[in-house]
């Protein structure tokens, strides 16, 4: 499958944080969930893709082109939503439409107004009077009205009520239906990612811990559970992360089916994206000893 986005060993160093050799690929026509805790490096990675920050090293390729050499051409085909509305609160939706019409060659006012209608957004009211949900919907409408081949969304659903989240997620699913559009979607709301994503990339402390197809991830990973005394017989090389409580232990493992025969007396449940995220992140520290 053709990749619409590729990152190879992208590094960016700040005083107190480092994006460390970030590499992953996003196939065309798919949605990738970019997951990680607050401060893991999700926004920094998206900024690096957009050349909003200058990377120290690494290569970013969008639509097969270098993201710096062909920056303007690439950006004609990108739609961006950041975690808050970036439009002045003194503007209204109609004015934003007029501004973007002069920015994007293919900006379609009709499509923009269709989204405004769909999202029930007034075109003459100042953004100042909009709720957070309305602002995010407006940003999404602005990003999807110039037939962008790739949407880059930075936590577009955080802080939204379930209904608004549902509406926006459905709109994203609709957007990629034709197989020509792709979405890179950062979030720490794992429920949203499980609902719409084809791929999951997990970043932790500036490093990519995994980047895989969501269905394979959910199929392969499992939660091994047992009593406290049983933990001593578990092969520690199988454990990617674990937690202990009064009743026993829970450990994240890979190759769920093969492990069933290895630990027949223990329970192995499916692991959710949240389990994988939490245990992989914790595992780094907990399992060292």
């Amino acid at each position, binding site marked *: 499958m053709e990749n619409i986005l590729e990152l190879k060993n992208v590094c960016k160093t700040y005083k107190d944080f480092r994006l460390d050799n970030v590499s992953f690929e996003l196939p065309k026509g798919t949605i990738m969930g970019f997951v990680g805790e607050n401060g893991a490096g999700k926004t920094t990675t998206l900024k690096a893709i*957009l*050349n909003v920050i200058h990377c120290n090293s690494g290569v970013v390729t969008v639509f097969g082109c270098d993201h710096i050499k062909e*920056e303007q051409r690439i*950006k004609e085909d990108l739609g961006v939503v950041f975690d808050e509305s*970036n439009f*002045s609160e*003194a*503007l209204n939706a109609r*004015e934003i439409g007029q501004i*973007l019409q002069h920015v994007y060659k293919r900006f379609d006012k009709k499509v923009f107004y269709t989204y405004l209608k769909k999202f029930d957004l007034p075109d003459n009211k100042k953004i100042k009077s909009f709720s957070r949900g309305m602002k995010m919907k407006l940003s999404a409408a602005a990003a999807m009205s110039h037939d962008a081949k790739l949407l880059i969304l930075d936590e577009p659903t955080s802080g939204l009520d379930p209904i608004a989240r549902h509406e926006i997620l459905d709109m994203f699913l609709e957007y990629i239906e034709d197989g020509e559009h792709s979405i890179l979607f950062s979030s720490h709301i794992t429920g949203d990612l499980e609902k719409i994503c084809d791929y999951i990339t997990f970043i932790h402390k500036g490093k990519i811990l995994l980047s895989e197809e969501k269905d394979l991830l959910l199929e392969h990973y499992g939660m091994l559970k047992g009593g406290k005394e049983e933990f001593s017989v578990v092969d520690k090389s199988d454990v990617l992360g674990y937690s202990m409580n009064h009743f026993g232990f829970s450990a994240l493992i890979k190759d769920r089916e093969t492990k069933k025969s290895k630990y027949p007396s223990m329970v192995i449940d499916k692991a959710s994206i949240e389990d994988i995220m939490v245990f992989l992140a914790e595992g780094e520290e907990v399992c060292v000893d």
Partner: protein
Amino acid sequence: MRGLILKDFYSIGKSGRVLLPMILFFFIMSFAAGNTSFATGFVMVMMMLLPITSMSYDAASKWDIYAVSLPIGRTKIVLAKYLFLLILMVLAVLLITVYSLIVWAIGMKGFSVEDTKLTVLLCTGGGLFVSTILLPLVYKFGVEKSRYMMFGIFMLPYLLVIIGKQLPLSFHPDFSWIVTHQGLVVFLVILALAALFMLSLALSASFYRKKDF
């Protein structure tokens, strides 16, 4: 770039709506006082400050990170702000010209076309001079930090005058050549301002290109 200039006009729309009655008030007061230069200065300063106001709106809404993600380019984003300044300056000169024509038509006592021309020239030049110094500072340090520097820039001419007044008369430079070579002085000032404008634009663009958002 047209989109960005449009955005700035929409953003300052509210300030503009407040500004217009104020300008009108100053025009009337100036007329009543028999001195148009005060209104001219006021219009210029207000118009000159609008790009900075728009930049503070940009900072508040985190516009720049979005703007840099658009297919425009960082240099053009800066260029659009400078063009916005120039458009406002032209608007200010137009406003003052219309006002002066009205005053001239009414026949205000003590109104001099020559004096008005000189005031407009001085205010436009002064406004452009201050803006071209201020804009790179705003691009480098942000609107908040630049506010204090702005006071410094505004105070500088006053300080020079105060210091000049303290000097003995023999140290005072002879400015009579300005009057005798008026045409040449105006030409040189315009040339210097144009050069300063280009230098300021290049500096701002260079700061903006290096910036991480």
